[in-house]
């Protein structure tokens, strides 16, 4: 009887969360997909005062920022995690690093944004720029990348390392030739999911990268306007253009599709790597 009740409760909980997700995705797509799929919108010039503008520079900003951040946060996070998992003895320093990254992951993104503005934008004189935003997002996503990597590294059987060391490999050679390749599917999944989070981030970027640009940024030192930040801008102060609701909805739908594709791609990519390397588990 209790079993049955519990089962029903869990089913209901699952149904509710699925329904909420479906509702959000549905409403965003219904309101914006029609706009988002038009090339003249996705790649078009934005308007500041009149209607009919596109989101070309924002689309480009999002891709640029995601790439830039990924190139910084993945090597850094994977390297740090590899050190923690493979080389460190459980000492004070390691506990401090873990404690630090755990704390980092519970700070709200707007705080990162303000820190980024004070430190990177003003103190480091980077100005509103893709680089300032990418650095801010690197700090923000470092804990996730590290945790995912460390988990995939720790999941690798000790026997692989033992085999490598017994053949005369050093710890570093073992990490590079055996541990990292075997952890690659997990690391890839983590990296791609992080890319999705970067794309969806707005609060940390409003104060570091910018919210509106007319032309696509070319240099990382130029200001830009990632899509999520631009959506926030349209909803709060974008009423200068009469069709802000249309632009925001289209942009939201485009962003949603991009993130969904990334998440789907993460699973497929990890599966492909597993298959290529012959990892069966």
């Amino acid at each position: 009887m209790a079993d049955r009740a519990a089962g029903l409760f869990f089913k209901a909980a699952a149904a509710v969360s699925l329904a909420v997700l479906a509702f959000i995705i549905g409403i965003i797509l219904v309101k914006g997909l029609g706009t988002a799929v038009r090339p003249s919108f996705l790649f078009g010039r934005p308007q500041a005062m009149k209607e009919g503008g596109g989101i070309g520079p924002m689309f480009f900003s999002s891709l640029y920022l995601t790439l830039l951040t990924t190139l910084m946060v993945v090597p850094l996070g994977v390297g740090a995690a590899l050190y923690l998992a493979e080389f460190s003895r459980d000492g004070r320093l390691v506990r401090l690093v873990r404690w630090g990254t755990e704390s980092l992951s519970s700070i709200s993104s707007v705080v990162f944004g303000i820190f980024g503005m004070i430190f990177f934008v003003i103190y480091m004189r980077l100005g509103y720029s893709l680089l300032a935003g990418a650095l801010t997002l690197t700090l923000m996503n470092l804990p996730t990348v590290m945790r995912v990597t460390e988990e995939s590294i720790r999941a690798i059987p000790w026997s692989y390392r033992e085999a490598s060391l017994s053949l005369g490999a050093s710890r570093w050679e073992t990490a590079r030739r055996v541990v990292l390749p075997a952890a690659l599917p997990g690391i890839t999944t983590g990296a791609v999911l992080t890319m999705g989070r970067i794309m969806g981030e707005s609060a940390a970027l409003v104060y570091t990268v910018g919210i509106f640009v007319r032309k696509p940024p070319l240099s990382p030192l130029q200001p830009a306007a990632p899509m999520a930040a631009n959506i926030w801008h349209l909803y709060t102060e974008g009423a200068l253009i009469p069709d802000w609701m249309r632009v925001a909805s289209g942009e939201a739908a485009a962003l949603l599709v991009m993130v969904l594709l990334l998440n789907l791609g993460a699973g497929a990519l990890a599966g492909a790597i597993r298959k290529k390397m012959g990892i069966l588990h």
Partner: protein
Amino acid sequence: MPCEADEEEVRGVKVSREALLEVMEGESDLPPDDEMEGEKDLAQGNKMELSGLSLSYGGKKVLEDISMPIPARSITAVIGPSGCGKSSLLRCLNRMNELVDGARVEGKVYLDGEDVYAPGFDVVGLRRRVGMVFQKPNPFPKSVYENVAYGPRLYGVRQKKVLDRIVEESLRRAALWDEVKDKLGSSALALSGGQQQRLCIARVLAVQPEVILLDEPCSALDPISTQRIEDLLHELKEMYTIVIVTHNMQQAARVSDFTAFITIEEQGSPGRLVEFGETEEVFTNPRKKKTEDYITGRFG
């Protein structure tokens, strides 16, 4: 081949100077067969030698004062009840026990007369010369080819041609070539357990070791795969010095030339060497009561 054999004997002399001076002096005329067990093969030289070896993990003694030779080009079996430290003993020979926190070794382990625990001794070189096969087959999650090529690549072999030759030769020696030659590129994890274990042997052979340590290599395998590995060991001892740890006494009796029996007094006390000798002697005419009790199944 004859050349290699000569070289081995030269090494043998060098080794034995440490511990077996008398035997070596009589090298030219081999001692008669009815001499004490082991002696005629000792004349061939010992590849390795343990002298007063003790091992402790975090202050707890696991092995106490083990002294025994490991004769060249023969199979030495280490038997004993579970928990007597026989696997730990094996790991002292290639310094794999160093990977365990708090492991401490006392005494000496000689390889060709050189103490492998001497300060400054090249561990990487040691592990290359003394290869190891583990209890559970542990191929890398890579292709069959990459598994065998792992060691050579580590030591800087880059040329495809050379690697191809090493891979084929090693797989042939491990009696696996015919079964995998058409799927060198597919995952090693797709092979059967017995094939995986032979692949691990091929992986060790590819770095051209002098000694091969096997830690209960058949305990996870079916009888047919076990048979194949045992046949293989017989062939390999022509070229390599082999040490096998096994809890299967029939296996020790079947495959080995020499047997070392290690046991513990009681749970938690360190393992001690009870008897070392020619396998036939140890099994048919043990010198110690404890050995007899163990091999007749009255204990352990």
